[in-house]
C-alpha cells in the first residue's frame, strides 16, 4: 500500500476513529446525536424550542421534552401544521426545531416548507428522522429516499446529512446557530461511529476522510462508513481512493468537489437516497459545469423501498461495500 501513509494522515487530521479495526467501531443511530445536540442547543439558547408530531421517542425529542418541558410543543399527527406553525413561532422570535419522519416532514409538508420557511425566510429547522431504506421492516411507505431531492431544489434551504451520531450532534448545534430554514436528515438504524469529538464540522465544508488519487468517493450519511471500508478493500488491490464526507448537500462545497475530480479524474457518489436528484446529482451538476469526469452513482436506482432488515435492504438496493467497490472499478475503467 504505497499511499497508506497519505490515507492515514487524512484520517489523523480529521481525528477519526480507526475505522479499519472492527473492534474500534461502536454502533449508534444518528438520531441519538440529534437528541443530544438538541438538548445542548436548548441549553445554549433559550429561544430554541422543539415541536413534535406524535413521535417524541423515535425522533429523539424526548430528552429535550424532559429538560425543557415549557419549550416543548406536541402537535399530533399534523405535519403541515407543524411547519406553518413553526414559521409563525419563528416570526415571534423562536428558533423552532420540528420533528417527524422525513417521509412526512418534509415529505407531506413540502409546499408549506417552500412557502412558509424558504420563500418566507424563517429560521425553522426540520429534523427528518427515519430517512433511507435502513428504516427496515416498516417498508416503502416509511422509507424516505426522495427527501434530499425535494429539499435541495428549494432556494434558501440548507440541507445537511451528517455521517454518524457524533457528527449529527455537532450538526444540530451548528444548525441552531446559523440563521435560515434548514433540513437535517438522519436515520433510524444503528450505524458506525467514525468521527470523534475532535473531528471538525462546519456547514458547507466537505471533509476528506481518506486521501488518494485514483478515484474520489463522495459520500454522505451513514454510508460514509461503507465508502471507507470499500476504499480499504480497494487499497489492498492497489487502488487508492479519496473519500469525501460531503455532509452539506446545500450549499455544497463546490471547490472540494472540483478538487476531488481534478485530483482523481473519476468520481463515485454514495448516498442512501434515489440517485435521481440527490447528492450525487448535485455533484454531477457541479462537475458538468466545471470539471467533467466519469461519475458512477451509488444509491437507490429509481425504485421504492420494502420491508427487510437494514442490512438486507442496503445490500438489495446496491449500497453495500461490494457494490461500491464495483462502482469504483467501473469509474476507474472509464478514466481517460
Amino acid at each position, binding site marked *: 500500500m504505497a499511499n497508506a501513509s497519505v490515507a492515514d494522515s487524512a484520517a489523523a487530521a480529521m481525528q477519526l476513529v480507526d475505522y479499519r479495526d472492527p473492534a474500534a467501531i461502536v454502533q449508534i443511530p444518528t438520531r441519538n446525536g440529534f437528541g443530544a445536540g438538541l438538548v445542548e442547543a436548548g441549553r445554549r439558547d433559550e429561544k430554541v424550542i422543539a415541536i*413534535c408530531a*406524535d*413521535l*417524541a*421517542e*423515535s425522533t429523539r425529542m424526548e430528552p429535550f421534552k424532559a429538560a425543557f418541558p415549557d419549550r416543548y410543543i*406536541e*402537535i*399530533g*399527527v*399534523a405535519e*403541515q*401544521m407543524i411547519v406553518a406553525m413553526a414559521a409563525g413561532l419563528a416570526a415571534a422570535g423562536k428558533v423552532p426545531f420540528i420533528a417527524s419522519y422525513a*417521509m*412526512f416532514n418534509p*415529505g*407531506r409538508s413540502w409546499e408549506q416548507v417552500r412557502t412558509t420557511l424558504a420563500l418566507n425566510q424563517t429560521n425553522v429547522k426540520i429534523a427528518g428522522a427515519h430517512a433511507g431504506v435502513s428504516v*427496515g*421492516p*416498516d*417498508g*416503502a*411507505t*416509511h422509507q424516505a429516499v426522495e427527501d434530499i431531492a425535494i429539499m435541495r431544489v428549494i432556494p434558501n434551504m440548507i440541507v445537511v446529512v451528517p455521517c454518524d451520531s457524533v457528527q449529527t450532534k455537532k450538526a444540530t448545534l451548528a444548525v441552531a446557530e446559523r440563521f435560515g430554514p434548514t433540513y437535517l436528515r438522519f436515520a433510524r438504524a444503528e450505524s458506525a461511529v467514525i468521527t470523534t469529538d475532535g473531528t471538525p464540522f462546519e456547514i458547507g465544508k466537505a471533509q476528506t476522510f481518506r486521501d488518494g488519487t485514483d478515484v474520489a468517493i463522495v459520500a454522505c450519511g451513514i454510508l460514509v462508513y461503507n465508502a471507507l471500508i470499500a476504499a480499504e478493500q480497494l487499497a489492498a488491490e492497489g487502488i487508492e481512493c479519496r473519500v469525501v464526507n460531503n455532509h452539506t448537500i446545500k450549499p455544497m462545497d463546490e471547490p472540494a468537489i472540483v478538487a476531488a475530480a481534478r485530483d482523481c479524474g473519476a468520481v463515485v457518489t454514495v448516498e442512501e437516497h434515489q440517485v435521481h436528484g440527490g447528492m450525487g446529482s448535485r455533484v454531477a451538476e457541479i462537475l458538468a459545469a466545471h470539471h467533467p469526469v466519469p461519475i458512477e452513482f451509488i444509491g437507490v436506482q429509481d425504485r421504492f423501498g*420494502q*420491508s*427487510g*432488515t437494514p442490512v*438486507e*435492504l442496503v445490500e*438489495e438496493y446496491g449500497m453495500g461495500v461490494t457494490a461500491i467497490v464495483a462502482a469504483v472499478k467501473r469509474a476507474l475503467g472509464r478514466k481517460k
Partner: protein
Amino acid sequence: MESLAPHLLATLQGHANDVRQGIIRSLLAAGSGHSAGSLDMADVFTAFYFHLLRHDPKNPDWEERDRLLLSCGHIAPVRYSAMAYAGYFPVDELLTLRKFGTRLQGHPERISLPGLETTSGPLGEGLAQGTGMALGAKMDGADWRVYVVTSDGEHQCGLHWEAMMTAAKFKLDNLTCVVDRNFIQIDGSTEDVMPLEPLADKYRAFNWEVFTCDGNDIGAFIATVERAKAVRGKPQVVIANTVPGKGVSFMEHDYLWHGKPPKADEADVALRELLAAREAIGASNRG
C-alpha cells in the same frame, strides 16, 4: 335490525379469537410492529370479513365487491390475519410479516397483496381515497359500498377533514367510515396529544350521520353498521369504542403497546389467554 343468532355470534367470536392469535404469532415472528390497535380492531375486521362484506376471497378483484380500506396502515397485522383466516392466502404466510421479500409489507401495499384496495401507512389518506371510490361508484350507478377504517390519532391530519367535507357535499351514502376510538396514539392519550372530543358532534357538524357502539362487541358492531347502511343522502360514521390491546390482559389500555410486538414469553402468555378465551366461547355456545 334483528340481533345475530347466538350460534352465529359464537362462530364470529371464534373467528375473532383466531384473528387475534394470528396477530400475536405474526408480530412475534416479525419482531416489530403494532400490537394495541391491531388487537383492538380484531372484532371489527372479523365482522367485515366474515359477515358484512360482499366479497370473494378467491376473486379479490371481483368488480362488484364492497371496498374495505384500512387508512391507519400500521395496524396491518389485523387485516392480514383476518384476510388469511377468511381464505385470501394461507395462514402460515402470516409468519412472513415484515420480512424481506414478503407480500405482507410492514404497511399495506396494494400492489404487493391482492385484496388490499389501497396502500397506506402515512396517516389520514384513507377517507379521501374512499370518498373518490364512493363517488366513482355513484357516477357509474354501481351498488357496492365503501368502508374506511380510520384511527382516532389520524383525525389530527387535515386531509381527513377535507374528505369529510367532500363526502358530505356529494351525499355519499354508500360510504361508511369506522373510527377506532381507542383513545391512544404514540405519545400518549389522544386527548393529551390533541383533544378530539366532542368527536361525534364534529362529524354531525360536517353533515355526517353518526353512530356510536362498542367496537369490541361483534354483534353490536354488525347491528350498527346495518343501521348505517340504511341511511340515505349522507355519509355515515361508526365511532367504535375499543380497548387498545383488547384480549391480551397486559396490553389492554396501555399506550406503550402502540408500536411494540410481544417478546417470546409475552406471546406465550398472550396465546394462553386467547386459548382460554376460546374455550369460554365454546362453552357458552354449548351451554
